[in-house]
């Protein structure tokens, strides 16, 4: 989706604000929020919308305005409400409904370390697919505008780049218009290098490059 999250190349976002004391959390609530997100669940239905898509469909003003951990907490609340595990009345009162079922935490002090270390690789060793492109080949990023979640930034679409590396086969992460996973489409993921001039025109430094990893479906021969 061509949303506010896809901000590569925008120029009007202001100066970069750098704190002198960059700690992981700048307030107690940020730490508790992150802890809650990692320590809750998994509860509720297993067929879920893509988490990044849920961020991406926030109204642009809200997306820009919300603090990072605030956004995560909002989406956790939305999911729990959608799964009927939480109600607005409970949030308003700050107390669990006495009639709501009592569950047992799935993530515990005993298994949290293992959970945080767990690798969640999308690489697919189970399938063998011949790559369509090879290192050194000139390709073009397709001019496509999917309405669901996609990992092809707008600023690369239609531009020519060179295959720099083939990372093997990964599950495709694009979704349908509602944010649900598409039918399984494992495919090669490549690092593609674009010259800054190809992306931004003649004013860019002639030496500079921008690289991204792109799924095969995003690329075409040129």
């Amino acid at each position, binding site marked *: 989706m061509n949303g506010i*999250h*896809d*901000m*590569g*190349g*925008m*120029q*009007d*976002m*202001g*100066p*970069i*604000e*750098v*704190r*002198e004391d960059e700690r992981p*959390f*700048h307030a107690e609530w940020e*730490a*508790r*929020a992150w*802890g*809650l997100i990692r*320590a809750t669940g998994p509860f509720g239905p297993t067929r879920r919308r893509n988490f*990044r898509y849920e961020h991406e469909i926030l109204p642009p003003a809200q997306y*820009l*305005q919300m*603090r*990072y951990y*605030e956004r995560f*907490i909002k989406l956790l*609340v939305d999911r729990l409400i959608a799964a009927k*595990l*939480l109600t607005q009345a409970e*949030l308003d009162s*700050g*107390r*669990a409904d006495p009639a709501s079922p*009592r569950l047992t935490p799935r*993530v*515990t*002090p005993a298994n949290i370390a293992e959970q945080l*270390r*767990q*690798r969640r*690789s999308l*690489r697919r060793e189970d399938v063998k697919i011949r790559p369509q492109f090879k290192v050194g080949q000139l390709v073009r990023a397709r001019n496509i505008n999917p309405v669901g979640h996609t990992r092809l*930034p707008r*600023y690369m679409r239609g531009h020519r780049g060179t295959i720099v590396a083939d990372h093997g086969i*990964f599950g495709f992460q694009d979704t349908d218009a509602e944010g649900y996973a598409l039918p399984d489409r494992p495919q090669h993921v490549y690092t593609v290098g674009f010259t800054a001039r190809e*992306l931004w025109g003649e004013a860019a*430094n002639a*030496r*500079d*490059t*921008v690289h*991204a*990893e*792109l*799924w095969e479906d995003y690329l075409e021969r040129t």
Partner: protein
Amino acid sequence: MANAPDKPVGRRRFLSKAAAGTAGLVATPRIGSSEPKKLLAGEQDQGHQNPPSDVALRVKALESILVEKGMVDPATIDAVIETYESKIGPRNGARVVARAWLDPAYRKRLLADGTAAIAELGYGGSQGEHMVVVENTPAIHNLVVCTLCSCYPWPVLGLPPTWYKSAPYRSRAVIDPRGVLREFGVTLADDVQVRVWDSTAEIRYLVLPERPPGTEGMTEDALAALVTRNAMVGVAKVAGRGGAAA
């Protein structure tokens, strides 16, 4: 720009004045400004308000409800916070860099297979499944960004700093990396190539900075202490003991 308040304000300063959670104005950008805004340690910009901000109260309410329902154990939350505050952070990445500076064979393995070489030092897991290490040289400077999200190599750098997640960095790093670097105090000669890495898929990047001069004979611990998080994202160089940058 529509809805512009009279006086330009930094986005976060604006946020601290706005009621959390209410739809409101988006801060006015300061177009063309080249100075990064420095926030001082005690500056109230992230919900330090007293009385507690609305979002802090909402998080607190949510935690107590979920604990009551048996969906979360507060001790697990404590353990998560402890992990990200003291175990998973940029000191891990600094160790990797220092080892690569001292051990040419390790450096070679690191550049050939980042994930495996980083795992040799015991680091790996969530958001570090597929690591690529890119090396700065006198002729090449690497810069890492995630324009679509805030993807970041947690096992070696911890949780991303606020600026990395911010719209100004995410938007401009790809179109004006040299301007972004100048905001961080790094000015590169025109004949140095800037390579920007936009973490669009599942690969996460670590920059191997140049070893600063005057560090010959230093131990791995001493070298690791010189390596900053910003240098491993590519927005800074590593300064030697006397402050001389490579």
